[in-house]
């Protein structure tokens, strides 16, 4: 669907440790695919550029984003209250391709869980078998969100400090039977995690992997070319994360150059 520019009324906010789910009303025409994002104006104070957030939930006339506070814009957004208005552009970008059959393994690093939870819901509705693997710094980081997602999904957690689930990164949660032949992989998280995952799956496994990348963005529409990621096609060339992505087939990206900018 073409993007909409609209104002949305905040209906509710749920706090989960370092993050908050900001729930708002949307019109009938708003129908985001998993992996698509909304571009939100996050207050004044010298902040002029919109901030991108993946759609975390969408049902009927209600949608939400899961916001982790990392700076001024996210601090502003996660403090919105019922009745506040948001200035939104979206949905934007290319979402996940849901058409593949087989078992689905979703790998989230930190706040990367936001688009994957929404993806997981859609895949489950289509009758897919979904396993959600989620890596975080420490067990209490996201408040009660793990319990809440645990009710929806077959959820496995890894923590860097070992305080919950397996110790280590989300990759520790991949079991030997999760192979590119039988499983489809979807990942969102820090670039270092995505690079490690491509190494783990090796070249032969890349066709079974889709990744959602994070790049700083301005327009979110593909017009400014500010959000580019290195592409395999046209050596030395780039794709726009906001329009060609943020979801890419792992084979489309030049992982060697992706690694250079960690």
């Amino acid at each position: 669907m073409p993007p909409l520019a609209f104002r949305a009324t905040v209906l509710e906010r749920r706090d989960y440790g370092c993050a908050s789910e900001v729930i708002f009303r949307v019109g009938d025409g708003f129908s985001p695919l998993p992996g698509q994002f909304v571009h939100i104006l996050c207050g004044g104070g010298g902040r002029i550029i919109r901030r991108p957030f993946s759609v975390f939930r969408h049902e009927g006339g209600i949608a939400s984003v899961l916001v982790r506070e990392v700076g001024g814009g996210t601090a502003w957004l996660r403090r919105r209250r019922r009745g506040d208005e948001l200035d939104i552009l979206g949905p934007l970008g290319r979402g996940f391709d849901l058409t593949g059959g087989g078992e689905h393994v979703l790998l989230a690093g930190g706040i990367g869980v936001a688009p994957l939870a929404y993806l997981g819901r859609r895949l489950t509705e289509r009758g897919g078998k979904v396993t959600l693997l989620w890596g975080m710094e420490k067990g209490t980081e996201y408040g009660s969100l793990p319990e809440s997602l645990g009710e929806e999904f077959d959820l496995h957690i890894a923590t860097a400090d070992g305080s919950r689930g397996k110790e280590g990164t989300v990759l520790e949660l991949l079991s030997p039977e999760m192979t590119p032949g039988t499983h489809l992989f979807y990942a969102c998280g820090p670039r270092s995690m995505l690079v490690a995952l491509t190494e783990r799956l090796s070249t032969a496994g890349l066709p079974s992997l889709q990744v959602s990348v994070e790049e700083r963005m301005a327009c979110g529409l593909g017009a400014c070319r500010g959000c580019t990621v290195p592409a395999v096609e046209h050596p030395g060339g780039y794709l726009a994360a906001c329009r060609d992505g943020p979801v890419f087939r792992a084979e489309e990206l030049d992982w060697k150059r992706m690694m250079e900018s960690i």
Partner: protein
Amino acid sequence: MEADDGIDLRVELAGISLKNPFLVCSGTFGNGREMSELVDLNALGGLMTKAVTLEPCPGNPPPRLWETPSGMLNSIGLENKGLERFLAEDLPWLSRFDVPVWVNVAGFSAREYVEWAEAVSRSGLAAAVELNISCPNVEKGGAFFSRRPREAAELVARVREVVDIPLFVKLPPLPGAMRETALAVAEAGADGLSLINTLPAMAVDVERCRPRLGNVTGGLSGPAIHPVAVHAVWEASGAVDLPVIGMGGIWSCSDAVEMLMAGAAAVAVGTLNLVDPRAVPRLAEELAGFMRWKGYRRVPDMVGLLRRRGWG
């Protein structure tokens, strides 16, 4: 267009008719396609294309953006598909709309500028050439010419010979050298000036001790540079009798009126398009309201009004 109450937003620039005095700045509107999903291109006063170079150009390494207080740094680095595809795909597509197109021409050498500007003129699809001799993101060709008034004038004269459409020259702010450079390019045959391009700038990630931009340095745009742009327009319009398109941090109707009063014949919205693709129609409507309120009937009534009122 002329409204019932006699407010007339139309302007004429070097013989080109604009519906309203708001253009969109080069590089902040793509070549119109992406933005057309959200805004009617027919509502723009004019459109300045993204810089196009003779050969395709991959652009600078990411990251290419960094936000600063009320500003934005970019180091896109002229990423574009090259002349051939621009002429075959983008320019014909744009010509379907009722909007004059300024083609932003960039090059890495004088020869490239000349060859390319001639091709644009010959296409018959552009209203004007905007000669970009001020891009801070490429070494040669960019800032090189704008820092050297004599070389700039020579280049303008060579391009002038090969183009049959109005030639606008885009300059960066040149503290202390604005008047001299404006005079030099005017004498060389420019039909108008575009002021200003971004300011050379950089930012550092002190946690990791590395530049915020992959290209190390970039160009600053947005509200932070607006007063600098107003000053550049003021200086240049005082020195030469050419239409000046004022740009730099226009975020509101009054920012635009400031430019007009300082001497700009029209204005262009840049970084704001990246936040609000519908900024131009919105600001045009606000301008009509402002004119009604203050009793200005035509845009030229405001152009250069500061000087006409005895300032400077």
